[in-house]
């Protein structure tokens, strides 16, 4: 049996709560919500009430003041809902769009945006990527021009998770057109601001129940109290914020793939061919062992990164490696699981098809595998 001693009884209790909630309240709706290309808004509210978004946030903003292992538990159990799209939407809410508010936001900003996001009352989105700039974050062109006490925002974002119904966006915009890295700032942008419009919900190959949207900003006026942190420091805040985002990506990706492997093992023990179960063939057993070993390595590296992150030690190297490794391994492992399921792997009613589609995102979203390698090359002084 797998045992990881860093998890205490409280962590395990939390694991059970998240798992039960995902398996009983969410998973039974997976087909419907995937077909609808959206899950109901109440899921945010319900998870907020259970305190699931606030694991690491301090108690004065409505969090639980827990350590990063609570975040790990939550990221690992979300895939039990059987929709990576929903898991991603929740992780954007809790660990991608909001941590930076806690780190650098003013008390008023925490009160207005962070606290209601933790309660699940306001839906959060992270607006960085643009049609012309994804990997190249410093290439964004959306502008925020100072006008008296306000900023006027113009431009476009795309591929924004929770984008079609977010109540606010943690938004990156250019405050200085001439300074590539030092000219980007972060804003907390309420989506009821005049001039804001949601374009098409984008059709995707996976993560169907999650809305991914194009967003348009036309002369949107926001008061300067919505500037997050210092003007011009946005690029660095985004890079800092990426650490937690990539860490939960690695943790949830490993756990999601593990569920598929566990199901595949059961399937191979029951499914018979040529008079014996599939596990009766050495080639199958070895394949399963290879997959299990790879995921154990992914998990161990992700846990090592979690440990460093939790201790406040530099973890960019390990987090980038974990994101890179999991992004590739999860995809390949689930592809093998699909193969082991034969036709049952290819049909929608089988237990692999959706995970196979959804997992394709892991090596793209939150920074591509190539970008992880670029970061690591720099860290290694190559």
């Amino acid at each position, binding site marked *: 049996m797998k045992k990881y001693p860093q998890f205490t009884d409280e962590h395990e*209790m939390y694991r059970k709560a998240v798992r039960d909630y995902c398996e009983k309240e969410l998973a039974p709706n997976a087909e419907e919500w995937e077909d609808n290309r959206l899950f109901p808004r109440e899921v945010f509210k319900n998870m907020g009430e259970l305190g699931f978004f606030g694991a690491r946030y301090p108690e004065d903003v409505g969090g639980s003041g*827990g350590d990063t292992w609570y975040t790990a538990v939550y990221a690992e159990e979300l895939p039990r809902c059987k929709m990576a799209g929903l898991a991603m939407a929740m992780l954007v809410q809790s660990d991608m769009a909001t941590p930076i508010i806690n780190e650098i936001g003013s008390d008023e900003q925490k009160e207005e945006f962070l606290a209601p996001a933790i309660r699940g009352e306001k839906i959060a989105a992270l607006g960085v990527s643009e049609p012309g700039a994804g990997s190249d974050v410093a290439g964004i062109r959306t502008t925020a021009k100072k006008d008296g006490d306000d900023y006027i925002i113009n431009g476009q974002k795309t591929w924004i998770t929770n984008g079609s119904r977010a109540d606010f966006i943690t938004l990156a915009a250019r405050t200085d057109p001439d300074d590539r890295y030092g000219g980007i700032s972060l804003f907390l942008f309420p989506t009821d601001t005049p001039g804001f419009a949601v374009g098409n919900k984008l059709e995707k190959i996976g993560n169907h129940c999650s809305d991914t949207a194009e967003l348009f900003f036309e002369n949107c006026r926001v008061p300067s109290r919505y500037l997050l942190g210092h003007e011009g420091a946005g690029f660095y805040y985004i890079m800092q914020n990426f650490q937690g985002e990539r860490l939960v990506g690695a943790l949830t990706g490993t756990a999601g793939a593990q569920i598929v492997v566990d199901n595949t093992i059961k399937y191979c023990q029951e499914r018979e061919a040529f008079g014996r179960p599939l596990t009766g063939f050495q080639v199958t057993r070895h394949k399963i062992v290879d997959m299990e070993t790879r995921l154990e390595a992914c998990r161990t590296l992700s846990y090592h990164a979690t440990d460093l992150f939790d201790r406040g030690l530099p973890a960019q190297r390990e987090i980038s490696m974990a994101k890179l490794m999991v992004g590739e391994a999860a995809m390949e492992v689930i592809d093998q699981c699909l193969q082991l399921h034969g036709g049952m792997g290819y049909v929608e009613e089988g237990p692999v098809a959706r995970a196979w589609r959804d997992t394709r995102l892991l090596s793209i979203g939150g920074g591509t595998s190539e970008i992880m390698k670029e970061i690591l090359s720099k860290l290694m002084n190559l």
Partner: protein
Amino acid sequence: MKILTTVKRVTDPDMKVRIQPDQSGIVTEGVEYKMNSFDEYGVEEAITLKEAHGGEVVVVSIGPGAATKELRTAMAMGADRAILVETDADLDSDAVARVLAEVVGREEPDVIIMGKQAVDSDRSQTPQILGSYLNWPQATFAYKVEIEDGWAVVGREVDGGTATKRIKLPGIISADLRLNEPRYASLPGIMKAKRKPLETLTPDDLGVDIAPKVKVLNYEAPEERGAGEMVDDVDDLINRLKDEARVI
């Protein structure tokens, strides 16, 4: 109102039970444990009653030190404090009832809410035996509980339907599975549970001799169930149930 509720740490009912080669018990190696599911309904009801009427919920478990986990879970759901009567012995229902009677003597609750049975031994005896030791009224298999003016009005699941019973408090209620939907422990609840008081006693502290009156001679696995069979139509099904299975 003071509400006493009980939880038992049981082997995971979803696992495949294996019997030890010498038939003296089940194999516990590698087995997962959890809170008895009927106790979850009991704990939920206790907390709901407290929310409606005020007061305190005390949760009690009799079992190994590891049962603190189930007690903390009940406190994470909303129970106020816990008592563990620690023992590694496998108690029969009578011993459990006598231990509980002593705890009740100390705590003097207004009402006791228990699961109707534990999903490991499936005996469904403890609430009833406790009722006789305390000489308190009992309403078992509850699907609905209302408390008013020192009385509990309890809707009960009975063979072939339901019945309603009114008992004078203090009394004992045992929970059936339609009673409520147990809440999920919230994360703030889990964090708070860490700081709630948990008292540990032993049967000796309570002066209870837990030597069993019931002796289990041996454990045997039931016969393997054969494969199912598809029948052609309803008439065929009815005939086969009548003539072959002889159940109707």
